[in-house]
C-alpha cells in the first residue's frame, strides 16, 4: 500500500440504530396514548452493527453496498451528523462532508448570495469567499447569471455552481456521498479531472454505486452489508465481491 501510515480516522465497534415509529406517533396525543397503553410506539432498526476500520492518510476509500446497507448512515456518523450509541470514532484533522452538493442553497436568493451562504456553511469567511469568488464563477461558467435568483437556474447550472464551491473546500478529509451521480457528460468530466488530481494527495471517503469509479480512483474499498463490513481490501477485490452480491 502506497498510502502513508498515519491513521486519520479510527472507527471501533460502531453501532447505530434508529427508532422507527410503528403507529403515527408524531403528536402529543399519540405519545400519551402509547404511554397509557404501554406501547413503545417504535421499533428499533439496527443500521450499523459493529463496524471497525482505520483509514490512513491520503487513502481514497470507496464505500460500497446495496441500498439500505448503512453506507449513508456511516458517512453521516463520520460527519458527526448522527451520534453512535456504541463504539468509538476518532478523527485526526479537519473533515469536510459533502452529503449533498449545494447545502443551504435557497431558490429565492441570487446566485451571488448563494455562493456566500454555501461558503459560510463550508466554513469560509466572507473575506476568503471574496478572494475565490471569481474563480468559482469562471469554473462554473455562470458569470452572466450570478445576479439572477437561483430558482431561475436550471438544475444542471445549480449543480455546476455547487460543485465549483465544493472543490474549493480545504480539509484533511473529504466525505463524498454520490456526488458523481449528477450532471451531464461535461460535468462528469470535470468531476473526473478533479478526482484524478486529488487522488493520492488527499484523504477521501467516497460512497458510490459505480464500480467503474471504485476501480478508477480508489486505493481501497469497503463493502458493507447489513451494517457490517463483509470485505475490506483492494478496489478490484471489493468491486468483484459487490457484483457477486446479486448472483
Amino acid at each position, binding site marked *: 500500500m502506497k498510502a502513508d501510515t498515519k491513521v486519520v480516522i479510527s472507527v471501533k465497534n460502531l453501532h447505530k440504530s*434508529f427508532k422507527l415509529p410503528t403507529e403515527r406517533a408524531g*403528536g402529543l*396525543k399519540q*405519545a400519551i396514548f402509547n404511554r397509557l397503553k404501554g406501547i413503545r410506539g417504535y421499533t428499533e432498526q439496527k443500521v450499523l452493527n459493529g463496524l471497525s476500520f482505520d483509514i490512513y492518510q491520503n487513502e481514497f476509500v470507496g464505500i460500497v453496498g446495496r441500498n439500505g446497507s448503512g453506507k449513508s448512515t456511516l458517512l453521516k456518523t463520520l460527519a458527526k*451528523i448522527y451520534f453512535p450509541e456504541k463504539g468509538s470514532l476518532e478523527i485526526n484533522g479537519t*473533515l469536510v462532508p459533502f452529503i449533498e452538493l449545494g*447545502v443551504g442553497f435557497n431558490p429565492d436568493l441570487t446566485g451571488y448570495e448563494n455562493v456566500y*451562504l454555501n461558503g*459560510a456553511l463550508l466554513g469560509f469567511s*466572507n473575506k476568503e469567499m471574496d478572494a475565490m469568488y471569481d474563480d468559482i464563477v469562471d469554473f462554473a461558467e455562470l458569470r452572466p447569471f450570478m445576479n439572477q435568483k437561483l430558482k431561475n437556474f436550471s438544475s444542471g447550472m445549480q449543480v455546476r455552481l455547487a460543485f465549483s464551491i465544493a472543490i474549493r473546500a480545504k480539509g484533511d478529509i473529504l466525505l463524498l456521498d454520490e456526488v458523481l451521480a449528477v450532471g451531464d457528460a461535461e460535468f462528469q468530466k470535470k468531476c473526473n479531472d478533479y478526482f484524478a488530481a486529488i487522488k493520492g494527495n488527499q484523504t477521501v471517503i467516497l460512497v458510490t454505486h459505480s464500480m467503474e469509479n471504485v476501480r478508477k480512483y480508489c486505493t481501497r474499498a469497503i463493502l458493507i452489508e447489513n451494517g457490517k463490513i463483509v470485505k475490506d481490501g483492494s478496489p478490484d477485490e471489493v468491486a468483484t465481491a459487490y457484483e457477486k452480491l446479486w448472483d
Partner: protein
Amino acid sequence: MAIPNFLYKNNRVLLKELTKTDFKLRYQGSVLGYLWALLRPLMMFAILYIVFTKLMRFGDSIPHYPVYLLVGTTLWSFFTECTNQGIQAIIQRGELIRKICFPKYIVVVSATLTAVINLAINLVVVVIFALINGITPSWTWLLVPVLVLELYVLALGISFLLGAINVKYRDITSIWDVCIQALFYAIPIIYPLTMIAETSETAAKVLLMNPIAQIIQDIRYCLVTDQSITVWNYVGSEHFFWKLVPIAIVVIVLIWGSWYFRKKSKKFAEEI
C-alpha cells in the same frame, strides 16, 4: 470529547450569513419590502390606539398614553415574533441539520436575530414618537437596552425549550399560539395596570410577577412616565424576595431551555 469540526472557528460567519438570509427572505416579493418591518407594528398600534384610547378611553389617567401604548405593542410584537421564529427554526432549517454538522443553537439565534433587528428599527420610531409627544430625554433611557436584553433572553430560553420539543411533537406550535393569546390579555399591554390595581392590588402584583409584564412596565417607567407601576415601586420593600421573581423566572427558563436543547440537539438530525 474534542470535536474537530472545521466550522467551530466560523460559527460567527455562519450566524451572520443565516441571519442575513432570514432577513432578506422575510419580505421577499413585497413591493414595500423592509418598510413592512416598520409599517406592520405601526398599523397594529393605530388600530389599538383608536379602539382603546379614543373609543374605550383606557388611558385618560396616564400622561403620554399613546407613547405608553406604543412601547407595549412594540415590545409585545417583538416577543411574539421572536418566539414564533425561534420555535420553528429547527424545523425550517431541517435540511441543513440533516446534511451538515454545526452547533444547532446557531439556527435558533439567527432566526430570533431578525426580530431583534426589527425591534431596533421600531425602537427608533418609539423614540421619535416620544420626542414629538413632548417627553424630555432622561438618563433612565439608557436602561432600556438592558431591559430589552432581559426580554430577548426570555424569548431565547422559550425558543430553545419549545423548539426542541417541537421537533418531535409539532403540537407545540398550536399550543404556543394559544399561550400567546392568553398572555396578551394577562399582560398590561392595551390596558393600564392602574385599572387592575384599582379593583385589586393583589391581582396587579400577581400580573407583575410575569417577566414580560415586569419588563414592559419597567421600560415604560424609564422611557415614558413615572406613573408606570413597576415591581420596584409597587411591591412593598418588606417583600423583597417577590421583586426578584420575574428575573429569577427569566434565568430559570434560559438555563432549563439551553440544557434541554443541548441534550436533545444530538438527535435532531434523525428526528426531523
